[in-house]
């Protein structure tokens, strides 16, 4: 119980919240880099998924991306990103973390977008074509809106995975909430380890809940499904 008291005391001390190594700074580092990685990966993965899904090409690619994405350990990706960015002269900290998180965010968004667009009822697409919609209009006015729930689910999967993996960023000299866990291990300070673990766990759960809420309320009623299909298991 004394241990739990120490953990609570850590959170209760305002000095631990502010400053360049405070909880708020670490939280901002964690969230900003995660958001940036998901956004940039989305700019690549979602248009690619929409295009290939619309053309009906690259189904094998979507399957391969899921399987590879699942088999590659994220820890290994973070670790390997470091020598790559050093080789490129980009150094420690931000770039290896960003590179790793970007690579991890692409597969779920690409696959879900591809599957979502591909699985739009062909009858609806045919009807749109019969009404005289051009290919571009079919994409923007029919396929993407109907695929939206699945696309948003893909963004959720990517965001949760990225927030989780950003914890490992402390290993390549970036900050983030993983700092507490890694430094705690190094200094054999279990209070710091548990503080970090609690913060990281809460952030991951908050991310999941936030995106679930977007899925539930941010998607137009007309295209909502009873249960949102997630094409790739997280």
């Amino acid at each position, binding site marked *: 119980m004394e241990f739990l008291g120490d953990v609570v005391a850590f959170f209760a001390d305002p000095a631990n919240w502010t400053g360049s190594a405070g909880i708020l700074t670490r939280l901002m580092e964690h969230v900003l880099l995660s958001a940036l990685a998901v956004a940039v990966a989305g700019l690549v993965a979602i248009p690619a998924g929409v295009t290939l899904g619309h053309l009906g090409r690259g189904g094998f690619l979507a399957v391969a991306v899921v399987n590879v994405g699942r088999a590659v*350990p994220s820890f290994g990706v973070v670790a390997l990103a470091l*020598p790559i960015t050093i080789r490129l002269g980009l150094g420690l900290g931000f770039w290896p973390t960003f590179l790793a998180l970007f690579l991890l965010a692409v597969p779920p968004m690409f696959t879900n977008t591809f599957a979502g667009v591909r699985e739009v009822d062909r009858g609806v697409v045919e009807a749109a074509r019969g009404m005289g919609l051009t290919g571009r209009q079919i994409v923007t006015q029919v396929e993407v809106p109907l695929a939206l729930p699945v696309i948003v689910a893909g963004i959720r999967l990517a965001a949760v995975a990225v927030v989780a993996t950003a914890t490992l960023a402390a290993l390549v000299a970036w900050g983030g909430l993983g700092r507490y866990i890694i430094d705690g*291990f190094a200094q054999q300070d279990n209070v710091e380890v548990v503080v970090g*673990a609690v913060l*990281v*766990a809460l952030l*991951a759960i908050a991310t*999941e809940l936030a995106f679930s809420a977007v899925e539930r309320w941010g998607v137009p009623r007309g295209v909502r499904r009873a249960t949102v299909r997630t094409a790739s298991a997280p």
Partner: protein
Amino acid sequence: MTLLAQAPQPFVRWDWIGGHLDDIWDRTVEHLVLTGLALAVGVVISILASLLALRYRPAYGPITWVTGVLYTIPSLALFALFVPITGLSVLTAEIGLVGYTLLILIRNMVAGIDGVPESVRESALGMGYTRRRMFWQIEVPLALPVIFAGFRIAAVTTVGLVTVTALIGQGGLGFFILRGLNTFFPTQIIVGLVLSVVLATVLDFGLVMVQRALTPWALRRG
């Protein structure tokens, strides 16, 4: 930044790999043991939880809620939470690894049984099957493809997560990844990463073979 000034070494140094084959073999075995143990315990717990959920439906919500939270907590945080209690031990690693398998396994077990067509159930009952016999001889075999799909995902995920346990002093092939990271020696990172992917792929392929042997009727559906 002295490390930036070093002369670039080749990304993969084959001589290092050649000189450490014993070490690599030992860590691969350790990786498989950590994975196998987690899957075995995960399956046992998941079977019990699924039986409970199928027998007593209101339990399914709380079960998926708890295992869903476990699944959402980042692996390093989950391991870290248990370090003060169980130390930097195999037990800590296994608690985390088992925790990650549960949601995938339970969800597919319950969904598999739920997916058995009602007409099949009625036929079985009409033929005089008891509930228990119908469950084990009709429902479970028909649910096997879905259950196996979950098991494959859990297996591949666990192989990847084992690498993270290097940070709590275990790790199997993750040991090489961590040491390569700490010593700026990419060869070790690549060995750990590539072998982990190979292990996951081989395991997945093996499970597909096992599933085909167990459910020969599913082949005909292509």
